[in-house]
């Protein structure tokens, strides 16, 4: 693991726009974040200046727009993210990070399959950027409740990713779950192949099971309620084969085989 660059900064907002059903794309100006951030990392963002909501919110780094601009993607689903959604270009967000470990980016993989469900697509764009920059083939399997909940399709396509969509209601792409098509995608081409998943726990667990069946490397980005965001409070612990580990500091990305799935 390389040394992490963790700082607290006031990041100037370039834009903060709705891009789908309650999905927002926030871009900020920061050369140092753009230089040091790795796919899978997040920013721990203070969403207001008062004491309510109190805690910072972990927001996934979505990608780099250029060498000085970092994008985030989030869904406004509570008071904290709603407050973030109300912020405007020219204002500054107080962010700690880039936090967390990040996905493996390794040129030895001939193909990568990114499995995203709902807002779980957020960190996968950055990962797709990194693998495409290495010339690796990237297949993106996107799952959502319905057509309105799909976002980033065009962005993945413009990176040269092969994109397949599933929706729970069949309003776009295949009707069913995104993991239904993972198996055929793993066997559809040459190896070595790696699977990276971020989304609902059931989806990641299913992706992990399928990857294990084919003996394919799989990493998942876990989510847990978080307080400090930098490893101090032990609030975001998840059970792994090595005991409890912290999503914020030991993760959020874990090798699928070390995760002890609960429930």
């Amino acid at each position: 693991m390389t040394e992490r660059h963790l700082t607290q900064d006031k990041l100037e907002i370039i834009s903060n726009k709705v891009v789908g059903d309650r999905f927002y794309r926030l871009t900020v100006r920061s050369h140092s974040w753009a230089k040091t951030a790795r796919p899978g990392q997040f920013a721990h963002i203070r969403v207001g200046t008062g004491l309510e909501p109190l805690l910072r919110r972990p927001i996934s780094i979505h990608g780099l727009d250029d060498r000085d601009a970092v994008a985030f993607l989030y869904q406004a689903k509570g008071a904290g993210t709603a407050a973030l959604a109300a912020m405007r270009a020219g204002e500054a967000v107080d962010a700690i990070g880039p936090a967390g470990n990040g996905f493996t980016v390794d040129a030895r993989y001939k193909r990568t399959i990114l499995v995203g469900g709902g807002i779980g697509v957020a960190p996968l764009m950055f990962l797709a950027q990194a693998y495409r920059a290495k010339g690796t083939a990237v297949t993106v399997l996107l799952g959502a409740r319905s057509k309105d909940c799909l976002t980033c399709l065009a962005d993945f396509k413009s990176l040269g990713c092969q994109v397949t969509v599933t929706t729970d209601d069949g309003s776009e792409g295949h009707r069913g779950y995104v993991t239904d098509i993972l198996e055929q995608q793993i066997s559809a081409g040459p190896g070595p192949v790696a699977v990276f998943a971020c989304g609902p726990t059931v989806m990641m667990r299913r992706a992990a099971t399928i990857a294990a069946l084919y003996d394919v490397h799989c990493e998942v980005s876990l989510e847990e309620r978080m307080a400090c965001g930098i490893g101090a409070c032990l609030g975001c612990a998840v059970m792994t084969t090595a005991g409890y580990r912290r999503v914020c500091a030991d993760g959020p990305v874990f090798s699928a085989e070390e995760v002890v799935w609960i429930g």
Partner: protein
Amino acid sequence: MNLDTDIAGIKLKNPVIMASGTFGLDYARLTDPARLGAVIPKSVTFEARSGNPAPRVWETTAGMLNSIGLENRGVTYFVEEELPLWLSLGATVIASIAGETIEEFVRVAEVLSEVEGISGLEINVSCPNVDRGGIQFGCRPRLAADVTTAVKNIANKPVIVKLTPNVTSVTEVAKAVEAAGADAVSLINTVLGLAIDIAAEKPALGRVVGGLSGPAIKPIALRLVYEAAGAVDIPVIGLGGITTSSDAIEFMLAGAAAIQIGTATFVEPKTGEKVVAGIDAYLREHNYDNVTQLIGKARL
């Protein structure tokens, strides 16, 4: 401005202490521990403990609930791996001790007494998130006193006893540990609370109940600090919801000789440094020359 603080022989450069369980080594990347009065790392038990099932934290109105369950890697790891890093950062370290039995408290205190660089011990008899040894000791004056006596017998440094607010009479417990030899008390630990996740229609925390912290508990903490400071002659360290230097000054005016900051660090990592600067500015503005002049000044 003189911010020097002496808590029963523990010399601090200012009265601002980082509370146990809230200030980890990673914060040294964002704030300078050497500028703070002291740091109290996460409580240590004799053996490693794995802690409680998730979810362990839940945000509430101007506060948060936690149920960590004293997860830590044990006293040996603390002494060999963590303490040297704190000391190399220039921090003044007070070690927090937890245990399931009086014997465990003593064994941990024994190990810590042999170590150079620890300025004092804080006995955590107020954790609400474990089945044995936490609040179970702190709620009973007699048991709290027994733990205090046992640790005092072995410890070669000042002993602070951290009290719980989840009692009918905090003065009774404070007086009991003072009589048992405590050199100071700190209060409050978290307030027992509950949240329900309505999306799941289940308790929000894995262990159902948890400890409430943050700005929401400040008036409760202040009242208990005021009462404790009136009941004992040993120094009282105040904590519970302190977020600004004004909050810290309130606690000192109520009778606290020093204060601790916990949850506020999660919100703003530099809270400790900002509170130090704010106290300094307040003293200048009001023509004090020594921070100790604030202690208990608002008491009637």
